């Protein structure tokens, strides 16, 4: 459905993409996971025919992004960051306008957006500018779907949105996938990665890894322990001073300790921490999250 071969893009001195290649199958939810500035928006803009790559080629739904851009523009849905909506038009007016832009009507594909739109329908006479982030998100999604696109490009649709709305949003995406729409979505939130069929981890214009979330987790080489104690701040320092660990990072309510040398035992660590003066020590071996994997893989490129 979407195919990229060795895409390169620079803006003057800044290199945005350094040789990106991947494929997305029809009906997949493909996530592009990475922080700001990694190149996600640039990639999306190339695929939606908004900008031209310096090098490489790409096709969407069989059409070349350079030569057959008009065809692509008829069959894709695009939701750029910042939920581009007309602030001074109402919810209803925005939807109707975009419907005509796509040569269709709101009624024609209403089934597709019904679940989403019904949540904002009570506010249909309200100006888009006066909606909250979660509502704007839903409206923008509806507008991007109104013409039943074959491929949906969502550029950071959940950034700056609270966790509840984010969760709801992903629920909506799953339903869309069931309708056969291929979805490419980018996000900086690592926890959303597990909701995709396949993901690509991107950092500084390069894909670090492309696979299913589970495979990426399986490929994590080291052992991972979650460590807790009474004094988390001190714990972090003490863990770091102990040189037997690869890495130690805070992960919410516990610290994740990454161990290369599988010979290390939990008991040893426990003793060490007791000596440091910690109480209420909890150490458990855990499966890595996508975030752990990302940090591990991107280690070499960041620092």
């Amino acid at each position, binding site marked *: 459905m979407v195919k990229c071969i060795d895409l390169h893009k620079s803006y003057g001195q800044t290199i945005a993409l350094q040789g990106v290649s991947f494929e997305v199958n029809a009906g997949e939810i493909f996530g592009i996971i*990475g*922080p*700001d*500035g*990694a190149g996600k928006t640039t990639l999306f803009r190339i695929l939606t025919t908004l900008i031209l790559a310096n090098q490489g080629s790409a096709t969407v739904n069989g059409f070349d992004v350079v030569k057959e851009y008009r065809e692509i523009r008829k069959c894709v849905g695009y939701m750029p960051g910042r939920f581009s909506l007309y602030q001074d038009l109402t919810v209803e007016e925005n939807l109707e306008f975009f419907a005509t832009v796509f040569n269709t009507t709101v009624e024609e594909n209403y089934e597709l957006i019904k679940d989403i739109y019904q*949540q904002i329908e009570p*506010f249909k006479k309200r100006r888009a500018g006066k*909606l*909250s*982030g*979660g*509502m704007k998100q839903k409206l923008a999604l509806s507008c991007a779907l109104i013409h039943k696109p074959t491929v949906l490009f969502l550029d*950071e649709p959940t*950034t*700056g*949105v*609270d*966790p*509840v*709305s*984010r*969760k709801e949003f992903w629920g909506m995406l799953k339903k869309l996938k069931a309708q056969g729409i291929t979805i490419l979505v980018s996000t*900086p*939130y*690592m926890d959303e990665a597990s909701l995709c069929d396949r993901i690509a981890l991107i*950092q500084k214009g390069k894909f670090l890894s492309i696979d299913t979330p589970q495979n990426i987790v399986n490929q994590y080489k080291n052992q991972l322990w979650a460590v807790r104690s009474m004094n*988390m*701040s001190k714990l*972090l320092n003490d863990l770091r001073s102990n040189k037997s660990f690869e890495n130690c*990072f*805070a*992960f*919410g*309510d516990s610290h994740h300790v990454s161990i290369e040398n599988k010979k290390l035992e939990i008991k040893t660590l426990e003793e060490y921490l007791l000596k440091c003066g910690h109480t209420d020590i909890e150490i458990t071996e855990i499966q890595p999250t996508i*975030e752990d994997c*990302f*940090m591990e893989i*991107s*280690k070499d490129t*960041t*620092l």
Partner: protein
Amino acid sequence: MENVITATNLTKQFGHFTAVDQISFEVERGEIFGFLGANGAGKTTAMRMLCGLSKPTSGIGTVAGFDIHTQTEKVKKNIGYMSQKFSLYDDLKVWENIELFGGIYGMNDQDIKIKTDKLMYELNFEKERNMLVASLPLGFKQKLAFSVAIFHQPQVVFLDEPTGGVDPVTRRMFWEMIYKAAENGITVFVTTHYMDEAEYCNRVSIMVDGRIEALDSPKNLKANYSAKNMDEVFQKLARKSQRIE
């Protein structure tokens, strides 16, 4: 332990719409206080009142000992502020930004110079000192922005989603800077949508529909709501929202 921020029945109304509905809380010196809530719950409005940017409709509040109704200028002098949207001037160099904000907060030139050198060393920014902020990677920018926000040693620093979109490693480095600042006595008032960051706070408040629905340490909140982590706590509370907009 003295209270650096106090709020009693703080309310803000826009016409018929009550954005913030009688919230009351206190924040102690050196605390890391997480201020959570869904979009539209009233977080930003509440923060603006505390920063002296917006006048409350009713209720009282003090920040750094100054009244947020009548002494807004004094409040502003004693706080630091950093948000995701703006923190530094892109077209000024690193040291120029520091000098600018130092000056705005009334530091004298000698002080600024000494502290700038110290900061550059601590952040390992010696090479980047003369670079335009626009050319810094996002992670660097955010770290620098935070340092600038606390440069003048304010009593409280307000952080509005400071780690949005930042890569995971830098996010953690950022929070380590927050810890250090708190250890040095700076009270940190932070909002975030990363629920794992909520765990790093001493106490967390969750706003729903303009009211504070929960206020406690992450540990207690998880116990009270039978949740594994803060994300679950948040999901349970925020779902009750009537304000589905």
